C-alpha cells in the first residue's frame, strides 16, 4: 500500500514537473540563441509571463470558425501533457508505468498532430493549408524513423515499456553500442523536425513562406494560443525526456527508491534538460535552415540511420546468441 501511494505521488509530481519545466527549457534555448548572436535576449522567465498574459486574454475567433477550432487547443494540450507525463523522467517507479509504452506515446503525439492540422484548415486561410500539408509531409517521414529507433532499443531491452527499458540500460555495464549511437543521431534529427526547429523550420519567424508550425497556429489568439504554445513547449520536453530516457538514463531512481535517491534523480534530470536546451540553442545558431523540399532528404537520412541501427542491433543479438 505504501509503495502504491509513493508511486502515485511520483506520478503526480512528474505531471506537474514537466509542466513547470517545459517553458523554462524553451526559454533557456531562446536565451542561449540570443546571447550567441550578441543580443541580450528576453529573460528565461519571459516565457512564463507570456503564457500567463495570453491565458488572461480573450481569444478572437474568425467568423466561420467551428466548434472544432475552439476545442482543438485544449485537446491538443491534454494529449501532449499526458504523453509527456508518461515518459519516465526522474524516477521509473511511477503509477502509470504500464501505460508508458512507446507505441502508445507515438499514437498520442500523432493524434495531437492530426487535430492541429485539421484545426488549421478549419478557418480556411491559405497559410493554414500550407502548414498542414507540410506538417503531414514531415510527420509521414518522421514517424517511421521514430518507431524504428524505439524498436532498436526495445530489441535490446526486450520490451517497449520505457521505464523497463531505462532500468535495463542502467543495469547493464558500460558498452560501446554502435546501434545506439546511430539511433541517437536518428532520434535527435526526428526531434528537431517534430519540434519545428532549425534546420527544418524556424521557431522565431512569423509570416514567412517557409514556416510550418507557425503557419498552422497563425489564427489562434488569447487563451487558445496559450494552450497551443504550452503544448509546443511540452512536446520539446517530451522529446528531450525521451532521448534522456533511452540514451542517458543514468541517475534515474529505481522502482523502489528512498526519497534521497529521488532527489538525486530529480537533480540529474534537471541538469540533463538544461544541458539539452543549451545544446539545442548552440545547434540552432550554428546551422542554416533548409529549403522545405530538402527536408525529405534530412528525414530520409534519419530513417536510414534508424534502419541501420536496428540492423546492427539485430546482427549483434543474433551473433552473440
Amino acid at each position, binding site marked *: 500500500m505504501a509503495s502504491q501511494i509513493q508511486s502515485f505521488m511520483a506520478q503526480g509530481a512528474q505531471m506537474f514537473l514537466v509542466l513547470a519545466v517545459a517553458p523554462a527549457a524553451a526559454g533557456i534555448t531562446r536565451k542561449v540563441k540570443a546571447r550567441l548572436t550578441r543580443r541580450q535576449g528576453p529573460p528565461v522567465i519571459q516565457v512564463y509571463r507570456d503564457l500567463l498574459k495570453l491565458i488572461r486574454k480573450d481569444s478572437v475567433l474568425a467568423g466561420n470558425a467551428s466548434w472544432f477550432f475552439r476545442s482543438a487547443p485544449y485537446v491538443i494540450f491534454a494529449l501532449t501533457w499526458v504523453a509527456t507525463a508518461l515518459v519516465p523522467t526522474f524516477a521509473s517507479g511511477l503509477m502509470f508505468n504500464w501505460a508508458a509504452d512507446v507505441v502508445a506515446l507515438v499514437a498520442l503525439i500523432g493524434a495531437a498532430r492530426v487535430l492541429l492540422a485539421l484545426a488549421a484548415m478549419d478557418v480556411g486561410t491559405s497559410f493554414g493549408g500550407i502548414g498542414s500539408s507540410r506538417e503531414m509531409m514531415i510527420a509521414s517521414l518522421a514517424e517511421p524513423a521514430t518507431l524504428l529507433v524505439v524498436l532498436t532499443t526495445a530489441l535490446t531491452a526486450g520490451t517497449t515499456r520505457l521505464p523497463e527499458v531505462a532500468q535495463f540500460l542502467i543495469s547493464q555495464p558500460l*558498452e*560501446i*553500442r*554502435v*546501434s545506439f549511437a*546511430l539511433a541517437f543521431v536518428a532520434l535527435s534529427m526526428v526531434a528537431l523536425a517534430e519540434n519545428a526547429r532549425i534546420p527544418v523550420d524556424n521557431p522565431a519567424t512569423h509570416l514567412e513562406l517557409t514556416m510550418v508550425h507557425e503557419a498552422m497556429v497563425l489564427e489562434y489568439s488569447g487563451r487558445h494560443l496559450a494552450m497551443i504554445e504550452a503544448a509546443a513547449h511540452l512536446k520539446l520536453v517530451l522529446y528531450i525526456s525521451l532521448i534522456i530516457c533511452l540514451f542517458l538514463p543514468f541517475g534515474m531512481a529505481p522502482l523502489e527508491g528512498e526519497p534521497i535517491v529521488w532527489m538525486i534523480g530529480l537533480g540529474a534530470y534537471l541538469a540533463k534538460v538544461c544541458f539539452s536546451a543549451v545544446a539545442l540553442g548552440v545547434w540552432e545558431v550554428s546551422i542554416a535552415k533548409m529549403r522545405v523540399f530538402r527536408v*525529405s*532528404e534530412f528525414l*530520409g*537520412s534519419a530513417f*536510414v540511420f534508424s*534502419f*541501420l541501427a536496428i*540492423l*546492427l542491433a*539485430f*546482427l*549483434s543479438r*543474433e*551473433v*552473440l546468441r
Partner: protein
Amino acid sequence: MTHGYDVAHFLAGTMLVASFTLLYQDRIFAVLNTFAAQAMALALAVAWQGYVQHHPDLFITAAMAFGLKGIVIPLALNRMVVRLGIHRDVDQAVNVAMAMFLGLGLTSLALLLVLKVTPGAASFTREGLALALAIILLGFLMMITRRNAVTQIVGFMSIENGLILAATGARGMPLVVEVSVAFSVLIALFVFAVFVFRIRERFDSVDIESLDRVRGERR
C-alpha cells in the same frame, strides 16, 4: 571476449555507415574524404583483430590499409580531381532516395544471408562476413549509380575494403595474398588513372555515359 567483440562491431559498423555516406554524398571531395575515413576504420578493425586473435601479421595488413588506402590513394585521387578540374557536383544515375532504399535492402539481404548460411561459425567470423558482404554489395551499388569515372573508382576501392574485412574476420588469408592484393589495387589505380585521363582527352568529360556513344548504344 564481449569487450573484444564490441570494438570489432563498432569499427565494422563505422565502415558500413561510411559506405552509406559514400552512396549519399554527391560532392566529390567529400566522397574522397569519406573513402579515406572508411579505409582508416578498416585499418583499425584489422589491427584490432590482430590484437585480439594474436596474429601479428594482421598488423602489416593494417599498416598497408592505413598507408595505401587511407593516405596514398585518396591523395592521388585528390590530385587527379584537381587536374581534371571536376570540383563540381557528382551527378547520379538514380536519385539519392532510391539509392538509399536499394542500399538498405542490400544490407538486410547480406545480413540475413550470412546469418542463415553460417550458423556454426565463430561470432567474429559471422559478424565480419555479414558486414563485409554488405559493404561489398554497397560498393557495387555505388558503381552502378554513379556516372562519374572518379567516383566509380572509389566504389571499386570500397569493394576491396569489404573484401579485406571479410578476409580478416575469417582468419586464414596468407600474408602473401594480402600483399599482392594490396599492390594489385595500387596498380589498378594507375590503370584507372590512365584510363580516366584518356577518356577526358577523347570526350572532354569524365561522364562515362559518353562511352555509350562509342559502343553504338543510345544514339
